[in-house]
């Protein structure tokens, strides 16, 4: 069997956080979260729905752009993925700009639905492949969506995990901070300290390595999931799985 690639470890780790859910939504341009959602769906015995936002073809909605947000507001969306140009130690997410807001040094597309979905979707999984002090910062320059809220603010949703190309963080909702959960194979805690701009907690005892998918899971990822994801993200599927889309 071909060696496990880092993408497969991420897919496996994310899918473990989706099992048992009824509806997982994935933003556009998110092949790894998308593959993870498809993996979780594959083993849900027909009990999980996956929707892809911002895509004309891969969604099952019929009431216009508002429906996916209405669905989330109704409590019918269990998990969603959020990235950020910057993410800070209080799980704040910045999708807007670096520097002064009215005349920024860098400007990104914008907050999209984050300022809402982060509040109402129970499991928001933060996902950032570039794990550096530039992206994981002490304090974001602009809060598109805050990680935590005061007790009187309606907030059924919020951050559930933060996953990067180096490690997986758990979220401590009481202390309102991240705690290192596992380190991906080939990476070290020293490297993570060095590359993270914010302070984070460590687990008690030894820090586990992020699981490598077993052969059963690998065969689902490389078979069914790779095939399905290649219809949405052909370049990704070709690069990671060597699968060519039939579309």
């Amino acid at each position, binding site marked *: 069997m071909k060696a496990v690639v880092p993408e497969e470890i991420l897919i496996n780790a994310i899918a473990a956080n989706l099992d048992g859910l009824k509806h997982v939504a994935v933003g*556009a*341009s998110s092949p790894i979260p998308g593959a993870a959602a498809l993996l979780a769906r594959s083993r849900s015995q027909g009990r999980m729905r996956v929707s892809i936002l*911002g*895509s*004309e073809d891969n969604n099952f*909605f*019929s*009431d*216009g*752009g*508002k429906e996916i*947000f*209405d669905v989330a*507001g109704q409590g019918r969306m269990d998990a969603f993925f959020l990235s950020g140009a910057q993410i800070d130690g209080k799980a704040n997410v910045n*999708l*807007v*700009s670096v520097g002064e*807001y*009215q*005349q*920024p*040094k860098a*400007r*990104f*597309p*914008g*907050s*999209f*639905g*984050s*300022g*809402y*979905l*982060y*509040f*109402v979707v129970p499991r928001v999984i933060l996902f950032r492949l570039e794990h550096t002090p530039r992206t994981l910062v002490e304090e974001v320059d*602009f*809060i*598109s*969506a*805050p990680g935590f*809220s*005061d007790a*009187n*603010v*309606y907030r059924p949703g919020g951050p559930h995990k933060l996953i990067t190309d180096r490690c997986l963080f758990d979220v401590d909702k009481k202390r309102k901070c991240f705690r290192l959960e596992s380190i991906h194979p080939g990476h070290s805690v020293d490297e993570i300290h060095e590359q993270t701009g914010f302070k984070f907690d460590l687990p008690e005892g030894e820090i586990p390595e992020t699981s490598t998918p077993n052969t059963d899971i690998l065969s689902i990822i490389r078979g069914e999931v790779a095939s399905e994801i290649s219809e949405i993200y052909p370049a990704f599927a070709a690069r990671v799985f060597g699968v060519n889309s039939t579309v």
Partner: protein
Amino acid sequence: MLATQLTIDQLASRIPDGAKLALPPDYAYCSLIAARALMRRKAKNLHLVGVPSLGFQADMLIGAGCVDIVETAAVTLSEYGLAPRFTAAIKGAKIKMMDATCPAIHAALQASEKGIPFIPLRGLIGSDILAHREDWKVGKNPFAENDPIVYLPALKPDVALIHAPVGDKYGNVWVGVRREQMLMAHAASETFVTVEEIVDGNLMDDLKMKAGTIPGLYISGITESDKGAWPLGIPGGYNADHEHLRRYVDLAQTDEGFQQYMDEFITEASSEAAE
């Protein structure tokens, strides 16, 4: 009741300088042919509203100097990267930015659709989106104790500009599941639309089509425009012209390059202008 049929330049002339102009995202039905006509007539001081995000159409209008204010949840060219003219304008503080979040745009348009002066929305509290929106307020939920919630004032565009695969001579316009375009038409004071084809008969007579059709009641003017979304595509119709879009993004990285694009595709008398 028959619709007012316009040439594309007549349509552009009916969108006044300074208008609050609602536009759909690139993945819906965008009237790029109308955007080019607006650039040709040198529209000024537009306040763009992305429903809920903006793309190539907005980047071009910004580059051409037509825009003062951008109110949107995002400006994105998706796989083509950052929107170059938008980014340059923002960094140069040439446009006023009103950042939003997608559901806030939809909800505020729904308030106008319903004729209510405001609508509440969950989320947003503690964000810098809210901090920078002086037109939004945090208030109380009158049905609960100590439950702050954001109040959004109704968002009423002066004009909604949309594109669609088919329309009819009564001004009925089929948008199918792209119902944010129907919401735009309900919410805006006036709606102008370009359609690939004006078909015979009445779209409302077919119960299947009627479910996805904006009634002519809302439509101030309609222009038949074959490939009116080009260089974008339309879902269920033709694909985007990827080569052209790539060329645009390359050129639009600089002022000079954008001017070259304008000269070649917009300013020069084109076959469109003769329509």
